[in-house]
């Protein structure tokens, strides 16, 4: 049985992130993607396959060509986690704010 691939696996690799960035603006076929990178066509095909398995790329047949289209909905899951982590730092600054108010009251009585 194959392990289920997820969005984190998809974006864990710099080449895959670059591929997503590239096709986010405009669908490309695999050859066009491969030309932009300094790695073998096979390596790009493998990255594209991982991205398909992760649901970040959909293949659309257009005439003879097969185009890779970005499916970016899933990336919002990542940003939701980043937001939660950001919240931790926000609450640190909340605590700083509260402490400053307390100090101001103690020192200046206001």
């Amino acid at each position, binding site marked *: 049985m194959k392990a289920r691939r997820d969005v984190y696996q998809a974006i864990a690799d710099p080449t895959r992130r670059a591929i997503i960035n590239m096709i986010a603006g405009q669908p490309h076929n695999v050859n066009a993607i491969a030309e932009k990178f300094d790695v073998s066509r096979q390596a790009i095909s493998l990255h594209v396959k991982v991205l398909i398995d992760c649901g970040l790329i959909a293949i659309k047949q257009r005439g003879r060509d097969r185009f890779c289209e970005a499916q970016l909905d899933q990336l919002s899951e*990542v940003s939701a*986690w980043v937001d939660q*982590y*950001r919240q*931790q730092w926000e609450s*640190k600054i909340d605590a*700083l*704010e509260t402490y*400053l108010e307390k100090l*101001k009251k103690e020192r200046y009585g206001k």
Partner: protein
Amino acid sequence: MENKKSSTHDRELIISRTLNAPVELVWEVWTKPEHIANWWGPNGFTNTISTMDMVPGGEWNLVMHGPDGTDYDNRSVFKEVIPFKKIVYEHISYPWILATITFEAQGEQTLLNWHMLFESAEEFIKVVKTYKADEGLKQNIEKLGAYLKEML
């Protein structure tokens, strides 16, 4: 998908806040161990600061004590310290973070910018995911606490 041009956008966190206190006070509260121990760390945590040598190359050792008794070691080294303006430190225990904090005096207020740069996008994602796990645990403990209060 914003800030595409920045090469660090996928491994950084930026937080800004205007604090209702003059920069001298904000600086003091940020740089003196007896103050920082009062606000650093998540809710319910206490802190012990054994070293805080605020000069370039100086060490900063802070242990956060979690509500469940777990200690979290935070070792950092200051890289840059410009009084009332800027602090740069490198968090050298896990996770590696380069933090840059700037203070901007705005009359009786201070604009604080807190920038955290992680080693790589991979590390950043890992930290964020781990945090979510911890956060879930924390919420569970909070829920338990609230529940126990109701029972009293």
